């Protein structure tokens, strides 16, 4: 029983990081109906920015997090402006391929310029471990879960209760009527990318504090997993992204506890396959009707 609770804590920690990244996927899909395949690598860039902020500028945790989020938000907006906006009217496939290319470009330019060796964040957070009835939670895990949930609450506030958030939801609902209503669509889309990338960067920073490996290829696997989490929850739906992410975290930790850890990724992918076969639009996704 205590073992299960322990694994539950681990699953929530993993799930909250996935959720931060999956939210970016869902938000961009919501407004643009494109899958931003570069998002996983934006997560990686966020981790690297945090690394440099912590080691070169010797910043403590909160400024590192903020700097990483800001820098990566800027990167996200630049990517949108340079690579996606010119293809707004192009067939959807072109944007997806471009996104794929941007992701690879980010990976390899980091690899070529910064080298493949793994880096570690210096310890930024207190190293206490609390024990509640044989379930050990470290301060690290609490902070990760806390910051993630805090950011998600903040996102919910922005999306539900601000004008910009309302504009985002409007664009997701009907992209062509919204500009007629005086909404600066390009600016809102840039904002969406900025928020999505900022959240991914937060995920990257938190991830690097928990797992001490920062390397150029880290975004690939985690990015795919977060994407799958967003799809399982129903891509385009913010609630779905969070649910899918925590579900994926549970599945991963659960299978890791039962099966050998080598098979963890494999089983997660197979489970996702099965879920998509049963419910192709994910849990909260809305099946888009196609008029004939």
């Amino acid at each position, binding site marked *: 029983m205590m073992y299960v609770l322990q694994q539950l804590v681990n699953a929530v920690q993993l799930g909250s990081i996935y959720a931060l990244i999956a939210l970016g996927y869902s938000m961009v899909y919501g407004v643009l109906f494109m*899958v931003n395949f570069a998002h996983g690598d934006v997560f990686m860039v966020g981790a690297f920015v945090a690394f440099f902020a912590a080691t070169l500028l010797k910043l403590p945790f909160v400024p590192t997090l903020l700097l990483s989020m800001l820098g990566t938000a800027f990167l996200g907006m630049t990517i949108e402006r340079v*690579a996606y906006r*010119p*293809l707004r009217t*192009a067939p*959807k*496939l*072109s*944007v*997806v*391929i*471009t996104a*794929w*290319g*941007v*992701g*690879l*470009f980010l990976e*390899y*330019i980091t*690899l*070529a310029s910064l080298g493949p060796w793994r880096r570690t964040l210096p310890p930024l957070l207190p190293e206490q471990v609390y024990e509640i009835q044989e379930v050990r939670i470290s301060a690290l895990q609490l902070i990760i879960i806390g910051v993630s949930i805090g950011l998600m609450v903040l996102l919910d506030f922005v999306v539900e209760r601000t004008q910009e958030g309302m504009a985002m939801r409007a664009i997701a609902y009907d992209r062509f009527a919204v500009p007629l209503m005086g909404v600066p669509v390009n600016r809102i889309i840039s904002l969406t990318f900025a928020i999505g990338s900022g959240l991914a960067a937060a995920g990257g920073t938190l991830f690097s504090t928990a797992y001490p490996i920062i390397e150029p290829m880290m975004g*690939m696997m985690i990015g*795919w997993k977060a*994407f*799958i989490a967003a*799809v399982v929850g129903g*891509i385009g739906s913010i609630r779905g992204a969070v649910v899918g992410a925590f579900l994926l975290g549970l599945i991963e930790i659960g299978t890791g506890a039962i099966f050998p850890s*080598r*098979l963890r*990724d*494999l089983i997660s*992918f*197979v489970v*996702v*396959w099965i879920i*998509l*076969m049963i419910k*192709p639009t994910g849990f909260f996704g809305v099946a888009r009707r*196609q008029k*004939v």
Partner: protein
Amino acid sequence: MKKYYVPLGLIGLFIVLTGASWLGLFSDYIQTVLIFMGINVILTVSLNLVNGYMGEFSVGHAGFMAIGAYITAIITTRVIPHFVLGAPLIPTGLYPPEVGTWAKGPAVQLVFPVILLLGGLGAALAGLLVAVPSFKIRGDYLAIITLAFNYIVKSSFENTQALGGSRGLVSIPRITTVPWVFLWAVVSLWAIRNFIYSSYGRGVLAIREDEIAAELMTVNTRRSKILAFCISSFFAGIGGGLLAHLLLYINPTTFSIFKSTEVLVMVYLGGMSSVSGSLLGAIAYTVLVEVLRPLGLWKWVVIPLLLIFLMLFRREGIYGGREFKLLLPKEEVKGYASATD
């Protein structure tokens, strides 16, 4: 130009290439590059069938390659030595060095196409795994399915110790040569071109344009999808088998998402929905990789940039949607001429 120029030209090219490689006129390096070119042609045209002609977004091509490669390599390094030399089917230690000696004789040239066919058939069977979900799922979701497929295949091979695990298979005998690759490249181009201009192929094109309308117009979309995916994965398996017998060792990381991406770049570089484009794209990409070799790691920065620039500035690639008149069947050429006159 008369129609028989094409077969004559091909036979002539075959003689030239085979003669040159036998006489040793090509250095090992050039031979390897030519073989890579041929394999890339096979991979590109097979992916073009699904991504270009059927309009899907399949990013798991390396998974089919892996299956073809592993099947052919298992036959060459385990099954045949077991029957011919009495070697164990699952080696307990390092490979005994005699494992590849059976391949020294001339008999191997007769067996090789059969081995490749078996690899291709295995890959085609796996193509069903992707074809069946594609009945209901399209677009981005199918991309995930194909991605998951690629990853599941790679991960399954990594976790199967009997097949070498992450170390993979070694001591694969070198059977791939320039003539073989040329032959299979021609076969794949010819087969897929004929498929496209047949009624099955028209069905595939119809699915790309409007699946529901195609279904209404008596196109059996399920059968067309199965055919397209299975033919595509068949040739990918053959490409994988040829690659295995060129590299002489394979491990799961050879067939990762990056390999799938390389084939994607070749397809979009050459142009979607174009057999000639696939040929050009594969050749151009192979040459580009060799030309950029001095850049080292920065080569892999240039290639995604190439993809981005293609999408931004020339979406149709080199020859998208068009074909060389020579490669079109006779009936098509007549229609071509009258449309432009």
